């Protein structure tokens, strides 16, 4: 009888656990499963309304009821009936402590419902011209191509909260004005083309900057590269990448964490996973960066899985020269970051590397949290490949990558108009959803 009572007690406990789990496992609202991206919708609506500068005109003529009314009609007509809006125009003054001053607002509802999001859009008065012309990277020494690896058939790791595409888009916006050509590499087969020195749209492959938006993962093309690089869990592929970086004098940017830790190709590794259950990805491990550096330095390939990073999670700060470039280029990531995969200083001598740019303060003199490593053979004058490695914790702040590249190449900005008070207005469009749950 005692056993039966014990079992009944167990059942009561499990029932309690189930009730508790059910209580906390609250299912999301249906609209949260596939939400309308209100932020993007707001931004694209503002951009569409300003395609003929009508929005800019309305923002500066808020007393003109005809124009302002026309804007209201256009807003109502362009948004779906279940989307409500509030559009507000602010003056950008900068003369007092209050940067933005309210000018006017229109709305078609008293409140914006349970779900809302907003986008901002800066408009300029028609009687002023802002003009900043950036110097192009590679203008004097060849190159000038930026490749952003945005391979749809490769998965990312340690880019938690982002997708490769969203990071690629931000990078495009931040860096494309500074390059002759910015090429989004959309698939691993396109990546294979540039690895084989074939241009995608007539750009120069030599001396390019290649930014890998997949985080600790590197895209791998199926075919020859997968065949030749399959040894030692694809560490050999990282070696070949190092060779290509040297051969084409690329600057390879690793945006977060441990560089070359995984390789990914959704079709090639469809049935394999990275030991954390992410299919389409394989773990190379610590051998990846060693193999890459061997390839970069033209050494013979030998499998080396020894660790060369410090996994200590330690706060580090941007160095003063980098803070200067923050102001120069108008890119402001947090000056304090957390180092978690800093590279050991021994790689400098071991692989003929010098520090082209040091970005962060050191928490230990033996480790470098983030830097551009420049490869030069002993006695040579020419640089033969570089590596930007940001050994910071996830999630990545892509502005640091942009800042690293810009600080390293230091393209100049030619301003024709510095300050002009009262010539800019900020338009904020907030959208909300009504109906349903």
């Amino acid at each position: 009888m005692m056993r039966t009572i014990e079992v009944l007690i167990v059942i009561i406990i499990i029932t309690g656990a189930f009730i508790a789990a059910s209580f906390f496992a609250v299912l999301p609202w249906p609209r949260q499963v596939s939400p309308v991206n209100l932020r993007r919708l707001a931004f694209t609506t503002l951009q569409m309304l300003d395609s003929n500068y009508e929005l800019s005109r309305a923002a500066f003529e808020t007393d003109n009821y005809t124009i302002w009314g026309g804007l209201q009609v256009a807003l109502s007509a362009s948004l779906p009936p279940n989307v409500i809006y509030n559009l507000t125009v602010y003056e950008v003054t900068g003369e007092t402590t209050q940067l933005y001053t309210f000018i006017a607002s229109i709305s078609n509802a008293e409140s914006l419902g349970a779900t809302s999001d907003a986008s901002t859009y800066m408009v300029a008065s028609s009687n002023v011209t802002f003009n900043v012309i950036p110097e192009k990277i590679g203008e004097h020494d060849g190159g000038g191509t930026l490749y952003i690896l945005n391979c749809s058939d490769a998965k990312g790791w340690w880019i938690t909260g982002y997708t490769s595409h969203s990071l690629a888009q931000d990078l495009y916006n931040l860096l494309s004005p500074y390059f002759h050509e910015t090429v989004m590499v959309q698939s691993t087969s396109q990546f294979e083309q540039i690895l084989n020195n074939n241009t995608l749209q007539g750009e120069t492959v030599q001396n390019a900057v290649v930014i890998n938006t997949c985080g600790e993962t590197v895209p791998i093309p199926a075919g020859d590269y997968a065949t030749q690089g399959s040894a030692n869990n694809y560490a050999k592929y990282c070696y070949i990448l190092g060779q290509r970086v040297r051969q084409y004098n690329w600057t390879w940017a690793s945006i977060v964490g441990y560089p070359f830790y995984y390789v990914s190709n959704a079709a090639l590794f469809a049935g394999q996973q990275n030991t954390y259950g992410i299919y389409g990805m394989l773990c190379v491990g610590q051998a990846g960066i060693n193999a890459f550096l061997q390839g970069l330095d033209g050494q013979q390939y030998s499998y080396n899985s020894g660790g060369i990073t410090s996994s200590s999670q330690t706060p580090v700060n941007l160095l003063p020269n980098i803070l200067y470039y923050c102001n120069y280029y108008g890119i402001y990531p947090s000056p304090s970051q957390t180092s978690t995969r800093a590279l050991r200083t021994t790689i400098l001598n071991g692989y003929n590397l010098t520090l082209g740019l040091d970005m962060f303060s050191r928490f230990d003199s033996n480790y470098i949290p983030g830097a551009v490593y420049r490869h030069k053979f002993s006695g040579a004058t020419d640089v033969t490949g570089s590596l930007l490695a940001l050994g910071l914790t996830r999630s990545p702040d892509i502005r640091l990558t942009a800042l690293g590249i810009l600080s390293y190449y230091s393209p100049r900005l030619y301003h024709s108009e510095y300050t002009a008070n009262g010539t800019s207005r900020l338009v904020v469009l907030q959208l909300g959803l009504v109906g349903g749950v």
Partner: protein
Amino acid sequence: MVSSTVDHMVAITVFLAATLLFIGLFNQTIQTAVIYQRHRATATKASDLLDNMLLSPGIPVNWGQTDVSPTGFGLQDPEFTQYKMSPYSLMRLRSSVGEPVYYNATGQWYSNVTMGDRNFMLVPYNLALDYSTATRLMGINNTYGFQLTLTPIVTVSIQETSASPLTLKVTATGVGFPLSYATISYCFLKVGVQGGSPNYEISFNTITADDTGSANINIGSVAAGDVYALIVYARQGGLVGVGYHERVDASKRYVIPFIDSFEDGLVFLAHSYDVHYDKPPESAVFYNATFVLLTEDFTLREMPITQEKTQIVYGHGSDKTYENVTIPTHNPGILVVTYTSNNQDGVVLMPWGLSSLAFPVVFGGDPSQQEWVATDMRQVTVGGIAYQAKIAVWSLEGYQVVG
């Protein structure tokens, strides 16, 4: 001893039953959460894919204006940034909804977008990018399927309220609201016949709509049997839409334009009987082609085009059954072909650049049979015309919804 054994047996039976029951219950909760996460991932992919298509011009960047096959998929206008689409790249997408047309004289299938009776956009399959190539170029083949739809935000409907004197009621409405007090620019093209060949008179004007987005256009010089075409641009507060309307009296013999080359601007003009396989001989169709160019202030300007002949013969000896015209520009506009045959006249419109007649686009797979479809949308402009771009994305990895 016996009672102890019974106790054990009862306890084990009850325990196993309870364990199985709770495994089932927990499994349901976990499955729901896993499916939610997978659906969220599909929704994120939808947003990314849409931006991927809309914010990249593709490779080569001007593939829409050439006859080459792209090696990278993207629809952005290469001359602009952000969400401005190329009117030509969109023309080169193979339509998922229009019934394809086979033209025997060229031996080709054509992607078909036909609006109204006589407004054609027929693109040969060798120039029209197909769905499977697009998924391969984006690296999502066998993992995700999608359907991309671009529809004009502003609908401009035109209704003939009086035949003579001609009065046309134009109404402009957006997705959720009429385009009150919109500025309406129009191009009126009246078809006539002189010496057996069609000619035309073009007039332009601008009027303002009322608070319901409507306006009446009165054309005094048009009789009840006259043939005409009206093209209207409505704009308000940065929002621009297009509408068109024709009156024709030739129901059998007319001209069908087939695009042959985007790079050279070459368009074949075919006899309708040749396309529909009716038996020859048939009366010839006499035509007169012109091109109206869309200017930056959304008025239309006439542009002369080269036309070697003005007659399409069908079934008489060895004569070709189609002729060709060359559009000398890559600025969006409208090819207007007026024609006459056996005293029956008509007019055919073809957009050069998708946006000039606000043709819609449906490209991709069929979402109707899919288990779960994520959607997202953006507001874009195509050649200055406001469009809404919607994407539907589904996973092809075959998981099931439970519960």
